[in-house]
């Protein structure tokens, strides 16, 4: 029962938006370089559901990390049911999407040889995203529904090490390739299309319009090369709080940027990596971004 419950929850989450990340250390765009290991020794698998308030994105993930050296695997689903309110509050513009991911890799002690790493794991994560959005390019052409299918491959390496017996630092590094679109850079708009015009002589006259949320601007797809880094500091004296110093960047030519920030996360008592929620603050191209996440781990 204990193991089946997480699986049931994953599939019952409505419009689940799976990024395949099983970590709640997420920024406002629901990305992370950390795949967290199981917080419960007697259960080598971990499932969680994370709701990213900033991007209105659900992620549900399941990760089995080998208890000792060995192959590990996981999967996830993600979904973003709607745009609108969160975009206005958090100044984001990501479109609706749904997708899934699979993760596999090896739990090793490769990093132990250097003397200061304690435990580490290397994972490959393959993600597929499907999204659709109404795009209006200019005044001379009608709105077009554009669908997007984006594969993504990320190589993630996580390890932890002590910091002067005062804290533990959990490091994450992820890099890879993805097919992306520039919908984040477009302007969120409401597109009104006339459906019905009142007949001549009807007073008062009226016009019926159909309103849909969409985006305005020149839509493009491109190949991106995302690189994410996280350094999560878990103080020994205050384990239920963690600080995440992170970067998110794209080194591909079309959308090259680097974003840095800090996150504060609150965890369950005696379970520092069982994150209940957190807030992140970052700067992307000089623009501040606020993110809020809430997580449930099983």
């Amino acid at each position: 029962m204990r193991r089946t419950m997480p699986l049931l929850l994953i599939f019952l989450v409505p419009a689940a938006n799976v990024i395949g990340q099983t970590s709640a250390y997420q920024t406002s765009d629901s990305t992370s370089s950390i795949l967290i290991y199981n917080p419960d020794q007697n259960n080598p698998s971990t499932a969680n559901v994370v709701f990213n308030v900033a991007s209105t994105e659900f992620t549900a993930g399941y990760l089995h990390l080998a208890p000792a050296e060995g192959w590990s695997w996981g999967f996830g689903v993600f979904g973003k049911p709607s745009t609108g309110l969160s975009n206005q509050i958090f100044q984001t513009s990501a479109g609706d999407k749904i997708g899934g991911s699979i993760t596999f890799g090896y739990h090793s002690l490769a990093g132990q040889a250097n003397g200061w790493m304690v435990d580490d794991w290397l994972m490959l994560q393959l993600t597929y995203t499907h999204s659709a959005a109404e795009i209006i390019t200019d005044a001379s052409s009608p709105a077009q529904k554009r669908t997007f299918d984006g594969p993504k491959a990320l190589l993630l390496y996580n390890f932890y090490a002590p910091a002067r017996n005062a804290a533990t630092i959990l490091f994450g590094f992820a890099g890879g390739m993805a097919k992306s679109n520039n919908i984040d850079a477009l302007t969120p708009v409401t597109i009104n299309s006339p459906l019905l015009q009142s007949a001549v002589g009807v007073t008062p006259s009226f016009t019926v319009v159909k309103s849909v949320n969409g985006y305005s601007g020149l839509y493009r797809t491109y190949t991106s090369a995302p690189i994410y880094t996280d350094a999560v500091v878990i103080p020994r004296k205050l384990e239920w709080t963690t600080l995440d110093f992170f970067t998110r960047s794209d080194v591909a030519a079309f959308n090259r940027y680097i974003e840095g920030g800090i996150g504060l996360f609150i965890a369950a008592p005696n379970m520092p990596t069982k994150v209940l929620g957190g807030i992140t603050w970052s700067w992307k191209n000089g623009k501040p971004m606020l993110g809020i996440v809430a997580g449930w781990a099983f």
Partner: protein
Amino acid sequence: MPNEYDVTATLTGQAISYRKLTLNGENVDLLGAGTRLALPDTFTGKLELKSPYTRKWTLELEITTTSDPQTTVFKKTMTGTIPNNLDYRWSDQITLSSSQPPAAPVGPRMLGMTITAIQVPRPTKKTAGRKNVRGAQKPKRT
């Protein structure tokens, strides 16, 4: 000549990311599922634990003969704490004995030191008749 034994090991403790117990170089399941191993009378046991936090742990280890599961040849409960360096390793010799006393908790001070103090080597065919062997009966004077 190794004999077959059933090993039951249960490790409890929160947030332990890496846990490995080997007896005579063979991996042992730490979830209490039971592992069947061919073991000599004396062998090396190794335990390795890692956690990003200072965490307490308990290991219950019991070895029984496969022919008679009621015959316990080793039983021990160990407790300890993964220290601030986040890494705990223990390695020592284990000797099997059918006269193994019931398990008794080991205090934290003893952890990492030894679990062999309770063991008495079983007389083997080679040593049973020899003098100065612990456990062998002295011949009576006439």
